[in-house]
């Protein structure tokens, strides 16, 4: 598959502060990639360098075959951008805003069709100032899509949203996959990255600390599966060979790298002496645990 974005040794310094510290990255055409990281990790700096909004200190960057810093305006025909924060022009209706934007491209989509794509067709005649937060974000996406780009940048598309608005936005971003677009999104929500992206790149302190699918990331970390239950105070203690610890809430917890054998031993013991295992739970490490572990070492920003 062809490469949409290629980055080698990308570095950005502001004085002594290193915002991006030698990032290597490749994004294939049609891939949905998430930049996951805390605020200040270097996500926005990186994406803005790829978008051609910022210059860089060093490194090679190629986006759709061009260096964003030197690309001609025609390069932008094929790129759609949803900024982290932007408002539509308040005096225009949603439909007019999309038509104005469509006029900037040589071969735009039909503005009405674009509004339908993001589910805003019923608000086409509404002034943008009257739109809700979620509707404004959909308009942002419509404005990014009306030029019919093959590559779409989404900088924190759901930050500040309530859960239902987030779900709605996720639906739209998933629709981009069906349209065959290459998507690069930034987020600091683990579940968002897990839900939307084919591949996740975890950024901390301007470096890539891990990358892969959600599952690969989980496997990469030595977080162990946790088997736990809440024994009654009258229950006999499990044998020491199981290695159970009781935490302050009274839950018995076994950390294990082989949950099958641990479970087998635990349930055999319980059946043998006839104690129930109330609230028995087996938890794989969540992406959140993985993320916290990956970004924990030495990061304060």
């Amino acid at each position, binding site marked *: 598959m062809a490469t949409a974005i290629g980055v080698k040794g990308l570095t950005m310094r502001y004085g002594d502060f290193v915002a991006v510290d030698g990032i290597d990255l490749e994004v294939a055409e049609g891939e949905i990639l998430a930049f996951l990281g805390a605020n200040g990790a270097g996500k926005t700096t990186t994406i803005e360098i790829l978008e051609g*909004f910022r210059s860089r200190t060093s490194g090679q960057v190629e986006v759709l075959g061009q260096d964003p810093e030197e690309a001609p*305006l025609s390069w*932008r025909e094929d*790129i759609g951008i949803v*900024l982290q924060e932007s*408002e539509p*022009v308040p005096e225009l209706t949603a439909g007019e805003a999309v038509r104005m934007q469509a006029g900037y*491209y040589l071969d735009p989509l039909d503005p009405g069709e674009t509004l339908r794509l993001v589910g805003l067709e019923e608000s086409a005649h509404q002034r943008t100032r009257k739109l809700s937060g979620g509707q404004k974000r959909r308009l942002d996406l419509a*404005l990014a899509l009306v030029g019919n780009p093959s590559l779409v940048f989404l900088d924190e598309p759901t930050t500040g949203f309530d859960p239902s608005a987030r779900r709605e936005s996720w639906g739209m971003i998933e629709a981009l996959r069906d349209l065959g677009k290459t998507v690069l999104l930034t987020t600091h929500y683990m579940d968002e990255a897990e839900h939307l992206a084919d591949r996740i790149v975890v950024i901390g302190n301007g470096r890539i600390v891990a990358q892969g699918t959600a599952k690969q990331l989980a496997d990469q970390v030595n977080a162990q599966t946790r088997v736990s239950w809440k024994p009654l105070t009258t229950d006999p203690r499990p044998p020491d060979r199981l290695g159970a610890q009781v935490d302050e809430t009274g839950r018995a917890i076994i950390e294990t790298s082989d949950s099958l054998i641990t479970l087998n031993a635990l349930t055999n013991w319980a059946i043998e002496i006839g104690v129930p295992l109330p609230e028995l739970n087996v938890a794989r490490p969540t992406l959140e645990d993985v993320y916290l572990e990956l970004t924990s070492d030495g990061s304060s920003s």
Partner: protein
Amino acid sequence: MIRHQLSFDLLIFRRNPAATFFTVVLPLIFLVIFTSIFGNNTLDNGAKVATLYVPGILTLAIVSATAVNVAITMTARRERGVLKRVRGTPIPPWVFVLSQALSGFVIAIVMTVIITIVGRVFYGVELQLATVPSLLISLLIGATSFAALGLALTTIIPSEDAAPAVTNAIMLPLYFISGVFVPDTEVPDWVGTVGALFPVSHLNKALQESFNPFAEGAAWPWDHWLVIGCWGIVCAVITLKRFRWSPNR
């Protein structure tokens, strides 16, 4: 592409109540108020008193349509991320900026026509055919230079909220010392001298020459055009050097 953007910019102007009030309605209200307060007698030389006011009111309308509007609109667009989004599209940035200046020019022409007609019909203010070309040139140089002034102002305005305050804090005193509200024959010399440093008084004087009922021939106020043009060029250079596309946060 510039026609596309211009048609939207004019639509946005029409839909903005503050902009239309200060640019279209307020100058007309001032014209009515001034002629009511000071009367519209016929002077000894046969001209109407309103002849003295019309150029001032026109100055107010042109400066408002260009400098004030451009400064407020462009600052708001910058702070709302509209400019940054436009920069992410294939439209050349200068087209977007030029369109904003052009829309000020179009509005200034419309206001010139309205004020000239109102002055003529209600207050008997004559405009000689011979001075129309000089009026148009004043309009062209004035609108372009004051649009550049508006763009230059955005470089010192930090936020959307500050835009109307900063713009008015600069423009209102200028109107008073530039003979727009008070004829410069009525103010102390030093006020006129200070006013003459700024372009507003020169636009006012250039327009006065066009509306001078005793003008002999075409009236070419070269000196005033020169001062306005120099201000415009300096402001254009400041804009080229310092104009920002990204929000100030």
